[in-house]
């Protein structure tokens, strides 16, 4: 049995715990992560030479960060860890890896995808101006590099990351000119029963918000952003208040994000079946409760499966590892898996709560002016998408892509796909699920033409 290869993609909370569980069974998993260090998004490490303490970097989560980092370090030689290595394709039970410009292959008997998430973006006029970052990127700048995205920052969008990043920025000494939240207090209150599934998480969210208010940082809910102003860079954000009053805030940088979206391209390349998830408003790989996909030997864990957060990612990592081991014929106690499943149940209720509290503003898509850029790689506007829907009869996103180039650029739809699908569905007057999903193709991220095959 010890010769079976379990390949884990991602060394965040999910990948770390999966690796730990597989190693505990006596196998030596291969762990691949494109980042320079383990930790994933939430527990992202600072570069070598940076010396901020865990408490400064991770706040309330520092205990868990230290635990996850520690668990990974403790694995030592019991895993085959390959940092700075991208899985750019999957083909016939082999992962195609890229380290620098060197390509290699890794065969696997089981593949655990713990690839995490990225920001979910709803464009608005001016969002491609220099100085606009995604909310997560704004946080990465601070967490990894110890720098802010600007000297007068507006944080815009919705989701739990919004007050958190504002809090982290303000605590670090940055000027937060305003926090503009598109969700309403009413929605937050409606979501309370579901959010109460995880009282600790709820309390932290309330704490950040209260802290921001106490610090005198303008925090407006129920707003509708209308445009980002500026010529060479961000100068201001315009928005409508919940009461319909036009307002403007001067700023030189904006962090923009509306929750997260799962990174599912590898699952697509593994030819897993996808199903439309009404909560996420995203097509997600279908899994059973333990993370098994429709492709034998391929498992999902963490935010890459659905957005349940870091604590759930740790559990899901262990559970997917157990499923993989079991399917490889290695005994796993039933009680252990049952315990993980039970621990995950409230997380899913919480996820529904989060979506109720911080809804993705799908309706903004209809209101985007024709001139607003949706796909920034290819400069495709909302008008271009409406055009291919109405003039050329594109009934679904791949056809809209073929006609308009939407999602054909460097990001391959990872940034623009969600909003592009909303604009298309609105233009066609159909439900979002009816326009389908962009089919994934390799490479998952750009592959240098200078790439050579490892000897």
């Amino acid at each position: 049995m010890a010769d079976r290869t379990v390949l884990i993609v991602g060394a965040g909370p999910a990948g770390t715990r999966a690796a730990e569980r597989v190693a505990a069974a006596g196998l030596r998993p291969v762990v691949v992560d494109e980042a320079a260090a383990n930790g994933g998004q939430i527990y992202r490490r600072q570069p070598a030479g940076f010396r901020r303490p865990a408490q400064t970097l991770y706040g309330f989560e520092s205990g868990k960060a230290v635990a996850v980092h520690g668990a990974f370090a403790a694995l030592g030689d019991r895993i085959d860890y390959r940092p700075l290595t991208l899985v750019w394709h999957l083909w016939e039970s082999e992962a195609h890896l890229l380290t620098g410009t060197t390509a290699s292959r890794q065969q696997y008997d089981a593949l655990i995808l713990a690839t995490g998430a990225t920001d979910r973006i709803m464009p608005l006029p001016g969002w491609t101006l220099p100085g606009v970052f995604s909310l997560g990127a704004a946080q990465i700048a601070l967490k990894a590099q110890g720098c802010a995205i600007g000297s007068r920052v507006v944080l815009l969008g919705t989701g739990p990351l919004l007050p958190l990043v504002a809090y982290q920025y303000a605590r670090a000494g940055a000027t937060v000119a305003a926090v503009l939240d598109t969700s309403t207090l009413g929605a937050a209150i409606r979501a309370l029963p579901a959010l109460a599934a995880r009282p600790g998480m709820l309390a932290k969210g309330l704490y950040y918000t209260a802290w921001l208010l106490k610090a005198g940082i303008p925090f407006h809910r129920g707003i509708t952003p209308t445009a980002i102003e500026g010529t060479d860079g961000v100068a201001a954000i315009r928005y409508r208040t919940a009461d319909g009053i036009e307002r403007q805030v001067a700023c030189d940088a904006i962090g923009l994000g509306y929750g997260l979206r799962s990174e599912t391209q590898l699952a697509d390349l593994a030819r897993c079946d996808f199903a439309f998830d009404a909560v996420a408003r995203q097509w997600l790989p279908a899994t059973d409760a333990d993370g098994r996909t429709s492709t034998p030997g391929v498992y999902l864990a963490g935010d890459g499966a659905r957005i349940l957060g870091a604590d759930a990612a740790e559990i899901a990592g262990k559970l997917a590892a157990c499923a993989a081991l079991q399917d490889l014929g290695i005994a796993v106690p039933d009680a252990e898996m049952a315990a993980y499943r039970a621990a995950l149940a409230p997380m899913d209720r919480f996820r529904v709560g989060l979506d109720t509290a911080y809804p993705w503003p799908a309706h903004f898509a209809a209101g985007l002016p024709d001139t607003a850029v949706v796909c920034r790689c290819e400069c495709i506007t909302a008008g271009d998408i409406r055009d291919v829907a109405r003039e050329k009869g594109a009934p679904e996103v791949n056809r809209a892509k073929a006609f308009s180039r939407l999602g054909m650029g460097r990001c391959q739809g990872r940034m623009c796909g969600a909003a592009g699908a909303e604009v298309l569905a609105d233009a066609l007057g159909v439900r979002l699920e009816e326009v389908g999903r962009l089919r994934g193709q390799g490479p998952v991220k750009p592959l240098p033409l200078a790439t050579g095959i490892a000897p």
Partner: protein
Amino acid sequence: MSTPVAADVIVVGGGIMGAATAFFLRQRGVKVVLLERGLVGQQASGTNFGNVRRQGRFLPQVPLANRSRGIWGRLNELLGEDAEFIATGHVRVCFRDEEVGGLEAHAAAVREYGLDLEILSGNALRDRFPFLAPGAVAGSFSPLDGHANPRLAAPAFGRAALRAGATVVENADVVGIEKTGDDFLVETVGAGSYRAPVVQISAGVWGGVLSARFGEPVPIVARGPQMGVTEPMPYRITPVVGVYSSVPEEGIYFRQVKRGNIVWGGGWRGPALPDIQRAYVDPMNTLRQLPMLRRVAPALGALRTIRTWSGIEGYLPDDIPIMGPSGKVPGLFYAFGFCGHGFQLGPGVGDVMAELIATGTTSTPIAPFSITRFATP
């Protein structure tokens, strides 16, 4: 069962061949129905490399390619839509001295067919095309060839056919064709049935299944040429570039679109699965293509690939298509199996097939492509 919709001609398959045939039949006033299983131009016609190349073809096919090239030149006018055809020229380069003779011989041969190629060698070649690597020994330049956008061309034919009065039915999977009396009865899943005295099968690689039902099986196989595209860079490489080599793996080709991306293909072919209508790129093929690209134009090594893809193409053992009337069933016509070079031919095939169906004869020779070459006695 409802009464079948009646027409003069039913075209089965809405790739570039079917869509163009429907369009040109309308130009001749013929009442035509175009039946497409998915969306018009979604298969090979919408996924190909976009080469509008005449040089390097099977000689007896050059007249057809010439006719098609003529149509490409006035496509926007004809269709009222832009399929992004540009006559950038096409250059075939070789890297071995012993290959130069092959380029020269081809140039001499196609001149007979009215296709003028310019042979350039050494410094003259690199002065004209400074992006070429020092190792390029000679090149054959076809100034009037070029490229077009495959994602737009066949759908544009489909829409133009529709505007011209054709009945274009998408999501119409033809599951039965039967000749009863003078008429063919064509059954679809989901889109009713149709009746006409003439049927054209232009169903790409799937054409073989249909021809077999009329007792004319062909040894067609499905394969997927392997494509890739880089991120955009300033528009510098105007011609389509292809490598002429005796080693198939070296046969890379690329073009830069005005937007700046470099699209490439060639070398290896990957698996194509006609049953599920998908073709894939084997990542090893991509990795093997990269040094071939750098070999031709070293500067490409500074770019990154953002996407790879494939499409399903039908190949025949002699590498030429099936085109013309059935050898067995009056009223039945074929245009399928274009062996990786049908995009350039598409408009011409549509025009010729419309001519053949409407007049019973063609002014462009197509005899070498007859399905009867595979007939078993």
